[in-house]
């Protein structure tokens, strides 16, 4: 897919005030007209970006589609915060996504890119080393908190089949790291001392935020559609990541670790449910060859630079 000087398009980004949304907007606004939707304020952004402070679920959001011709939607407006009430979380993610899909269909938006994630396959002992895009999304078996993110992915999948006239792209990147990222993976790796599970040292895949932006840009190019795992420069054991970051780890026997995490989570002292510990116990690695073959996606950051970017806040 050659990067022809594409014509200026109107690109709508949901969740533009998020960490990834902000850097994506900066990346796109020079070549395209960027329109944002978010309930959170969009601070210090470029002047030529219009941001609507609207809830995806409310009618105000539909007005944006009605008044402006939208050429592409990048749907980043998803919540990944297990601390929120489950019904609020579910409503924001599911109802919000359904509205976005609905507007795309009704206002004939030719391109939709959804940023899903590779962790929805789940870290499970019986996982083959590399999961391809057709592997079942089993993370919900471990912890129900992730189920609405699986459901969002599935909604987009069925949308893909129902609306063949719209180029729908679902991207499932591995753990995103980088100076702007504040997610479960970066928070874990930024701990002063990193707890690990004694006797477990799974291979992990990380990807630099800039490489994710590159994948989104490729997904926006004409003709691209389908589901793609987005993989960074390779995989290394957790212990190597920790020592590359110059940190110490504290190995905890896993029955004890799950017990402690369960209590801390119940008292809301931990942002993640205990079952997320499975991600540092079993592998959840994905095969990125489809994105390589079809989107010509290749990560630019190498393994060492991707890992080190965790600490470049």
């Amino acid at each position, binding site marked *: 897919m050659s990067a022809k000087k594409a014509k200026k398009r109107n690109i709508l980004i949901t969740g533009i005030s998020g960490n990834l949304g902000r850097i994506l907007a900066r990346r796109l606004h020079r070549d395209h007209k960027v329109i944002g939707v978010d309930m959170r304020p969009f601070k210090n952004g470029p002047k030529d970006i219009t941001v609507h402070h609207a809830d995806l679920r409310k009618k105000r959001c539909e007005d944006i589609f009605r008044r402006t011709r939208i050429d592409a939607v990048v749907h980043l407006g998803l919540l990944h915060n297990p601390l929120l009430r489950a019904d609020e979380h579910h409503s924001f993610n599911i109802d919000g996504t359904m509205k976005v899909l609905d507007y795309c269909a009704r206002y004939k938006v030719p391109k939709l890119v959804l940023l899903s994630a590779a962790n929805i396959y789940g870290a499970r002992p019986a996982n*083959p080393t590399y999961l391809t895009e057709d592997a079942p999304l089993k993370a919900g078996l471990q912890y129900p908190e992730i189920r609405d993110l699986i459901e969002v992915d599935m909604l987009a999948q069925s949308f893909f089949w129902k609306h063949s006239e719209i180029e729908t792209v679902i991207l499932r990147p591995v753990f995103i790291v980088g100076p702007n990222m504040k997610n479960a993976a970066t928070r874990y790796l930024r701990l002063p001392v990193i707890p690990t599970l004694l*006797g*477990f040292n799974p291979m992990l895949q990380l990807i630099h935020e800039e490489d994710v932006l590159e994948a989104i840009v490729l997904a926006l190019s004409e003709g691209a559609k389908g589901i793609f795992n987005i993989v960074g420069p390779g*995989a*290394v054991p957790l212990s190597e990541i920790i020592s590359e970051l110059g940190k110490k780890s504290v190995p905890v026997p896993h029955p004890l670790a799950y017990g402690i995490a369960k209590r801390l989570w119940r008292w809301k002292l931990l942002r993640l449910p205990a079952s997320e510990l499975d991600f540092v116990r079993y592998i959840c690695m994905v095969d990125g060859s489809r994105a390589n073959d079809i989107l010509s996606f290749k990560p630019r950051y190498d*393994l060492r630079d991707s890992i080190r970017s965790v600490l470049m806040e």
Partner: protein
Amino acid sequence: MADEGSGSILDKLRYWWDTPIEKIFDKQLASLTTELNDYNYDDFGFSPEWVKRSLLFAALIYRYYFRVELYGAANLPQGRAVLVSNHSGQIPIDGAMISTGLLLEGDPPRALRSMVERWVPTLPFVSELMPRLGQVLGAPENARGLLEREEALLVFPEGVRGINKTFKKRYQLAEFGSGFMRLALETNAPIVPVAVIGAEEQFPSLANMTKIGKLFGAPGLPLLPQLLVPVLGWAPLPVKYRIHIGEAIRFTGDANDEDIIIEEKVKAVRERVQQMINYGLGSRRNIFW
């Protein structure tokens, strides 16, 4: 490594002490062709450093406990291959000895890859050790991935049927699964038959109490009289292993052919392995030396 097989036990021990172990294994490991990343792991978590550390232990057992003789190492072709071996001895020492042999005496040395059961990743420490030594979870995707990366994959198509054999049925191959054949056809990999002589006698089993084993979630439970001898009997008998690597066989055809066609090919491999076992049994002097 050829000259050190001769001489008395003392000479052999001296060889081990005199020659820095690091150096021996660096030579072996330097010739591995597996592609490694910046941190010296391959895509599946294989690590030559870990292999080197474990190889010391494995090599001592190989040389001085089972005194393995390896024949036909040169038959292993370069690049991808599926090694098909008989499976025996109640615990899978045979796999470790074949792998150790081809790493120590292979020309060039090869690190075989093999598959483990699905519950192995749930075990602490073991779950880390296995991938570092080149073992991956037994899934078709993994086998395909390894062969596409030009690795040599060791499989035991008899599975537990083979390893749990009773003494009465020693050296009679159990039924072969056919997955390996479809895999070899799909990836266009040659099949290398392997016969292990000796392992059948390391833990003679009078009966396989499958039903009782199933109660504990195990595929079988062998009745091993030697376990009644405290401590000493708990180790496998110090039988002599003889490993024969046969000439590679290439099969052509559709990996998705009907069972009957695939089973014909599987039968050919099974017969070849059985022939090699019979030959190996005929030419061995004694179980223990």
